[in-house]
């Protein structure tokens, strides 16, 4: 069996379906939930919450800061030009460039990390169903064994309001 999943219109039902899959012994990482909006109030949406994004953004900022410092101070020393009596390496004006580079570094690091960790861009998985963007919540498992698929089918069907589908 390639995949088995169910579509629910109600997030409460989706939560029950996730619980049912867990009860069948499906590992947390194998349960797939897809929706057209985030459901912060439900436990199933809190899976995969741990992220390094904040730290990566901070790291990007530090990298940008370092690049900004190098860009300003190094080039000023390589091409020394006195402007308006200011020192060759002028800390006050350089701070502006360093600040902008810091923020640019943080922004770019965030975006790159977001794309990498969210697996974007990617091909649509076989589990994906267009009904997701119509407002349905998809709960399923990708690539279960035939014996497990039959049990999962029953587990998903046991939750009221679900349309169970499978991909052979």
């Amino acid at each position, binding site marked *: 069996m390639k995949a088995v999943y169910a579509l629910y219109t109600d997030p409460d039902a989706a939560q029950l379906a996730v619980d049912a899959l867990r009860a069948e012994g499906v590992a947390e990482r194998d349960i797939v939930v897809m929706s057209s909006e985030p459901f912060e109030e439900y436990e199933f949406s809190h899976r995969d919450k741990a992220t390094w994004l904040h730290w990566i953004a901070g790291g990007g900022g530090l990298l940008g800061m370092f690049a900004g410092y190098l860009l300003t101070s190094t080039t000023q020393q390589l091409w020394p030009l006195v402007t308006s009596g200011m020192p060759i390496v*002028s800390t006050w004006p350089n701070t502006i460039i360093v600040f902008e580079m810091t923020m640019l570094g943080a922004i770019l690091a965030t975006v790159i990390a977001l794309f990498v960790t969210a697996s*974007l861009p990617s*091909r649509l998985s076989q589990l994906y169903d267009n009904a997701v*963007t119509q407002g349905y*919540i998809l709960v399923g498992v990708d690539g279960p064994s035939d014996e497990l698929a039959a049990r999962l089918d029953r587990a998903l069907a046991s939750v009221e309001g679900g349309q169970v589908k499978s991909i052979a």
Partner: protein
Amino acid sequence: MNRTRNNPLADDLVRPLFHTSVWFYGAVLVLATVVLAGAAAWGYQLWYGIGVAGINWPVFWGFYLTNFVFWIGISHAGTLISAILRLVNARWRRPVTRCAEVITVFALMIGAMFPIIHLGRPWLAFWLAPYPSAREIWPNFRSPLVWDFFAINTYLTGSLMFLLLPMIPDFALVRDRSTGWRRRIYGALALGWQGTTKQWHRLESGMQIMAIAIIPVAVSVHTIVSFDFSMATVPMWHSTIFGPYFVAGAIFSGIAALIVAMAALRKLLHLEAYLHPVHFENLGKLLLLMSLLWAYFVFAERLTVWYGNEHSEMAVFWATQRGEYAPLYWAMVVCNFVIPFPILALRQLRTIAGTVVASFAVLIGMWLERFLIIVPSLAHKPLPYTWGDYAPQPVEIIIMVATFAAMILLYMLFSKFVPIISIWEMKVGNQPHPPVVTEAEDELAGLWRARP
């Protein structure tokens, strides 16, 4: 709870992408013609030289730089306001954010064009870029113009990302509703978005970080634009108040632009069900606050100059208060304070029509403010023999009008290809809260039941 009840919402917001009225084509044709006229005027200037513009000694900065500052100010409408509202988790922000963020991106692009137009020799614009050269002239990181290059590009990059990231789930929605070439295009734009819990988490965390990062960048951009002036020892420019004064003015004009854009979208795309009077009322309150803040800054600046009674500054001061620039100055005061204040202060007048009238006044007033900061000071430098005048020439006027047309055209085209209101964020806004009962509420309910 039936999730598919949100489909009418998606239908409404996606409809403009699939249906185009004759009016749309007509408007695009007219606006494109004006934009082409602007391009032709620029071509004329390139062919005959910068002398065809009114800028000349001693007023080297005229309409072009006025428009540069004005458009950079307008760009503060979006990302900054959207980021602040996102951080404070204002629920009413949901239909507003994308309308606002788009303004930022297009206004920045248009604003950044003006220094290049102003150069006269745009093919040398790359000199602004910080690269070491054999001429031993660049990079000069002590020049405020180079600061502009960094600030505007950082803000443009951040704003573009801030706009594009939340659009990905909506592209996926349009992808799934499309067929043929549309499906391929929106499929590519959606980047394979599936709406997994991981993707939602990363998107929301990323947006949170971006919101935090973009606020200081937005503040820095207009502060740095103000440094273009305040770093020079020109009368009434060399002022420490210029940074916050420019930032406040930028947010002021930005909110006004946002209100006008929202009113137009509401009317033209029939978004009455999503852009409610309360959105205009709340933005109207913000506009009122900024109007008061603007008046405070103007008073503080003028009083300080007047009290100092420094000769060169007083020449500019009186030129604007009762001299040749007085009509423009008092028109600015009327547009930025006298008209918007009563409209926005009185609740009965703080309607959609009222806020739009106030916003139009503010946009005119803020354009005049930018002009009055630049031209009178350059025309009245410390030594009277250097005094001069400035009169805009047709080339400058046509290019200015063309940029306004370009802004409207870009906005219209954007709303034709992308849902102008973030559909998934609207859906989140429609989510009812689960019946969570806290211990305190439980206790209160028990007391209520046990009442005598």
